[in-house]
């Protein structure tokens, strides 16, 4: 673990100056938006971690890659760190999203917003937005966790193929997943308009305990996927040359 953390620190020190600052700005923007009533902005935290790890891939292309062959570090830790760098910021982003929804919900229920904000942002637009999707505010907690898990697992899968087979193959492999998810989401919204499918609220467990378990399970699934995909990639790339 110590070596994985060392490699994570190394990689983040590279991306800090590139995407890291944007992740920070996005986090502030999403938080402010949430607190003034546009609470779906909390979901932005699910994608904000991209800015932390995605730039690394650009830096890794070319001569910089040689450093991974020169550092006194076993190659398996370099690979494991790559997956940890994706999974843990995503989990942190997911948890931040949950906390923001919790805080915003509490503020909203307490009617602490100035009247004009309640009317313009909280009560009107955003409440309307989620109700047209057949949702309740409390559904957002579960959906945020599920979205975090789904996105992270797809990204982990993408990086696994990227490490083993390269960028082109990775894009080709992941594209069908993304298209299928997009098609399912659009299909659901259309069907939902006609009342042909149960609402999201109906599909999610009614009990709060089960919902909390689903949220925890989503984050646990990310850790499991990170371990599994990371170990598989370590084996598959053990003989890969730098």
């Amino acid at each position: 673990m110590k070596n994985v953390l060392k490699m994570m620190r190394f990689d983040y020190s590279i991306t800090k100056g590139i995407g890291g600052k944007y992740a920070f700005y996005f986090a502030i923007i999403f938080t402010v938006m949430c607190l003034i009533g546009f609470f779906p902005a909390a979901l932005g935290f699910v994608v904000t971690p991209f800015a932390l790890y995605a730039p690394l891939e650009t830096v890794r292309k070319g001569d910089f890659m040689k450093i991974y062959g020169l550092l006194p570090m076993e190659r398996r830790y370099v690979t494991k760190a790559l997956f940890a760098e994706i999974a843990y910021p995503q989990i942190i982003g997911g948890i931040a999203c949950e906390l923001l929804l919790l805080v915003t919900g509490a503020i909203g229920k307490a009617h602490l917003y100035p009247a004009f904000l309640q009317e313009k942002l909280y009560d009107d637009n955003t409440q309307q937005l989620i109700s047209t999707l057949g949702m309740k505010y409390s559904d957002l907690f579960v959906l945020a966790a599920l979205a975090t898990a789904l996105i992270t697992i797809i990204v982990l899968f993408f990086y696994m193929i990227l490490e083993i087979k390269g960028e082109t193959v990775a894009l080709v492999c992941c594209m069908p997943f993304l298209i299928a998810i997009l098609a399912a989401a659009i299909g659901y919204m259309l069907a939902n308009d006609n009342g042909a499918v149960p609402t999201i609220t109906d599909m999610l467990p009614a009990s709060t305990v089960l919902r909390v378990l689903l949220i925890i399970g989503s984050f646990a699934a990310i850790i499991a996927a990170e371990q599994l995909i990371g170990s598989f990639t370590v084996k598959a790339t053990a003989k890969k040359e730098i």
Partner: protein
Amino acid sequence: MENILDIKGLNKAYEGFALKDVTFSLPKGYIMGFVGQNGSGKTTTIRSILNMANIDSGKISIFGLDSVENAVEIKERLGVVFDSLYLANHLNIKQIDKQLAPFYKDWSSEEFFRRIKAFGLPDNKKVGDFSKGMKMKLMVAVALSHKAELMILDEPTSGLDPVARDELLDILSEYISDDSRSVLFSTHITSDVERIADYITVLHGGKVWFTGTKDELHEKYLVLRGAEEDISSSLREKCIGFHGYRNGFDALISADLLDEIPPELETEKASIDEILVYIAKEDSHEKRSENDEV
């Protein structure tokens, strides 16, 4: 004499190229020039030493340790300079120090900044904006800051202006002055090898053509010149890279054959550059003969 680097029977095949039975040693306290044409296998050998390429067979020992089994320990004690910078271009010197320090037990930030200052490198500029010479010096500073006992340089002087090249060679000479450290540097700028190398390994077509001291190489080969009618066919066959022209011929010949050379022919000491050229000519003769036979 204790060897810091030992390569025995190294074989590594890629599509269209192979290292064949590469064997040579570098004793402690010396500089070895690793020369050969482009594509002769210098970089593949270096990548094999660094465990960045997987070897097919053979054994590489560095500091008496196996290059695959003990890769981490070896890399702690190894400094590497490539022809291009392997550090993130957008970082500055202070960030590089922070980034690399946790990886080396013997890393000294004090020594790093001392070297940076001595080399005249700016510590607030992005390293990607450095000139090629500055990048070389930075990689040398990194190697010196973790007390590397063996420095491996792959084409460090190519693309450098004469002043920067001279500075780099001085740094390398100073580096081995305490007799406990060694340098292996690959280059095709043979004047650099003539200037500072104690040992030379000539690689040609993936095979070691010569390995030994620089003096041995100079003593072993001579350039032979004269009129074509003065050379016997048996001696001509023993020549390397025989090149006939309107007024005569020239070729490389082993000094062991000195007794067979008629007095009409002239001999002179061969430079490394000349040796490389004659090896290449011999190679093209062989290829032409093979094609003629086909």
